[in-house]
């Protein structure tokens, strides 16, 4: 590969990482509280609000069932409102965040619901209110599960980020399509795929390692 192509590859990798990092952070920022609320607002739970739970669940499902490429196009007005433009790297983080938030929320919800209800009961018996229980029991106990969920979300975002080339988002996917496919440079296509594989592998390994370190449920020598 020519130095020019290596430069392009590095540039695209940086773009992808930036998009995914921003989307993952914002997605967590919105998705974490949403997931906690979804888990605790069901009937008979700590913050019981079945109606709101139902409505939020519907919105989350709707977003999640929309194919990402359609979502990107469908929310262009919203993207323009937030980012001031609908094309480019930063504009692309808007649909990525919109897709990541409900995904992360559902993963967080699942992790929280895995927490033994006996622990919530114990905390209630010691006089804890709902917010204390969420802070001191649910989040710490669900943390390994939440981390695994975030790992999964980041891996999915790496995949989604390939599609935002459609709105000029740049990044690895865009590079692979433009050079590898449209200009028929198979070595570029290969390089892009290899970099993506390495990234996914790295994210997965780091995420699992952190989750394992936090998980005290199993006995370790």
């Amino acid at each position, binding site marked *: 590969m020519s130095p020019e192509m290596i430069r392009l590859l590095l540039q695209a990798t940086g773009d992808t990482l930036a998009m995914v990092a921003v989307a993952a952070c914002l997605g967590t920022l919105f998705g974490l509280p949403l997931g906690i609320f979804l888990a605790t607002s069901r009937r008979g739970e700590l913050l019981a609000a079945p109606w709101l739970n139902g409505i939020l669940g519907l919105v989350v499902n709707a977003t999640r069932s929309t194919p990402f490429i359609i979502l990107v196009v469908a929310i262009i007005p919203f993207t323009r409102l937030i980012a001031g433009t609908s094309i480019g790297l930063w504009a692309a983080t808007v649909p990525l965040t919109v897709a990541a938030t409900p995904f992360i929320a559902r993963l967080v919800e699942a992790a929280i619901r895995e927490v033994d209800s006996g622990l919530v009961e*114990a905390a*209630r018996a010691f*006089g804890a*209110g709902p917010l204390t229980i969420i802070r*001191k029991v649910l989040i710490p*106990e669900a943390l390994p599960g939440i981390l695994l969920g975030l790992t999964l979300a980041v891996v999915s975002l790496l995949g989604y980020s390939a599609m935002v080339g459609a709105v000029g988002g740049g990044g690895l996917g865009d590079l692979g399509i433009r050079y590898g496919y449209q200009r028929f440079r198979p070595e570029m296509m290969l390089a892009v795929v290899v970099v993506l594989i390495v990234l996914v592998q790295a994210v997965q390994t780091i995420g699992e390692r952190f989750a394992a370190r936090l998980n005290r449920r199993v006995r370790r020598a």
Partner: protein
Amino acid sequence: MRVQVQRVRCVSSVHHDSPGDAVPPPPEVLIRFEQVAKTYVTRDGVDVSALSGIDLSVAAGSVLGVIGRSGAGKSSLIRLINGLERPSAGTIKVGDAEVSSLDERALRHVRRRIGMIFQHFNLLSSRTVSGNIALPLEIEGRGRAASRARVGELLALTGLEDQRDRYPAELSGGQKQRVGIARALATGPSVLLSDEATSALDPETTRSILALLRRINRELGLTIVLITHEMSVIRAVADRVAVLEAGRIVEQGDVFEVFTRPQAEITRTLLAGEMGLALPAGLRAEIDTQPIPGGTAVLRIAFRGAHASDPIIARLARETGIEANILSGTVDEIAGQPFGSLTVGLPAGPDVVGRARAFLDAHGLVSDLLGYLPARSVEARRVA
């Protein structure tokens, strides 16, 4: 329902006004249920009555054991005390607080004065032993330094100093329950609730946990309400016992009284294995409620207190000429008092049963006629 007067009021009460009055004040009632009922409504709108007509009082500093079969309503009853469940009718008081009418916020403060331990321990897997014990202190908002000192005391009390930095997954069941107990005591409660705290433990560990509970009761003056389905647990720690069946208290009283003179059928059944009241399995199958010609009448004799070591069977033979045949027997101690139970076969003969029971009565012994056995069963047993 018996009305007990709180100690504070007794001081000025007209009944106890003479200075040298020898009559001790009646024990202060710490927990009181009055006509409590609990009905759950399931998701399909079906009513499930879990408790009804519950009248119960627990004296400060005493240990009440609540026993009953699965589904009898034990957990419901204990959870009403700290307001984890709300009664459908009646009132529940803990000290001055009427928990049955407090709102959730006010309840939280009452709960900090009521510790609770659980069958499955319910420890946070993400926290060390020390961290788990500190949880109620954090909930209460106690400062870090004060909290650390308190955790140290509790580790010492429960013998967990060496485990302080371990995680629950690295502990045995008995150690986990000790952490549970230490955590329940962290805020210095006056009441400890125990929901089947030893049901997941082996007999040896159960004994040590029960001994710890008893020590806490004695040394800290804690009032304990514990529920169980095992009479052995009641016997090891309780002062009083309430027997629950299908949501009602069918019997309650001092442990020794209830163990030695069980009234309700369910109590007898629950006691059967525990007290050696059961017949040996081989005989149980053959016993008949109707007299059998030439057969043996089977009598169970309960020995209470000093009688437990009397050679009563020898005296029965000497004084009445009735040669009773011992089928099974145990001597035990209940609530610190000796208690024995002997199952004997009486030979056939005119009015043997009547005379034997009259003799036992005269010696203050309670006997029960269990039924009749064909003579050969008893013979076979004697040879073996």
